[in-house]
């Protein structure tokens, strides 16, 4: 402000306007990604940015990102097909909450080993509502969460 206002002062008021350009962040996210673990880290970054642009606080951002990452890890782990497998993420928000869907293509493998199956437990804990919907082409995990509890 010292550099903007002359030492001798001004004859009128000063208005300072701060703009944050988030035009690159879409109102909805639609991603189709290869079913490979290496997509998870950039996917989490994209989801974090999107959640913040939707007004999520730090806690909601961290928890929803964790849940989405787990659901996508499930899709990657369970998806298998002769051709390169993909999965889809759709995220949209309405006033005060977000709805995120993760869909894979392929039959679901049963959880294997004593530590398998923790992913959905984490998703359940982090989100308000979770539905696992098997369909003709694969499985959709539909998650909803209020942004401020």
């Amino acid at each position, binding site marked *: 402000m010292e550099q903007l206002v002359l030492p001798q002062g001004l004859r009128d008021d000063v208005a300072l306007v701060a703009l944050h350009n988030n035009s690159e962040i879409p109102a909805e996210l639609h991603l189709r990604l290869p079913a490979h673990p290496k997509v998870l880290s950039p996917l989490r970054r994209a989801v974090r940015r999107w959640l913040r642009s939707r007004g999520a606080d730090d806690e909601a951002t961290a928890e929803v990102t964790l849940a989405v990452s787990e659901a996508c890890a499930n899709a990657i782990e369970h998806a298998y097909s002769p051709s390169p497998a993909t999965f889809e993420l759709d995220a949209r928000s309405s006033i005060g909450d977000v709805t995120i869907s993760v869909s894979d293509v392929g039959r679901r493998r049963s959880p294997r080993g004593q*530590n398998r199956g923790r992913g959905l437990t984490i998703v359940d804990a982090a989100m308000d509502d979770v539905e696992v919907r098997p369909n003709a082409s694969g499985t959709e995990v539909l998650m909803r969460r209020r942004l401020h509890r």
Partner: protein
Amino acid sequence: MMRLADIQFSTRGRAMIARLVGELDMSNAADAGETVAERTPNEMLGLVLDLSELDHLDRSGIQLLYRLRENLRIAARNSRS
């Protein structure tokens, strides 16, 4: 392992301290587990995992904790026999 996470090792007495920095997920948790297991000598009495600088830990990371605990249990049993 890929650079999604770094592991810094130090010792305190006969305990190995592994400080994980970054993110652990299904893309790197198995490699991280192997690195920690390889760098932890059998004569160590304990292993401390410092996760305070970890930005993300998913169920692969939780599996890693269980696996390392099991490794330590086996190592302790072998050292007693």
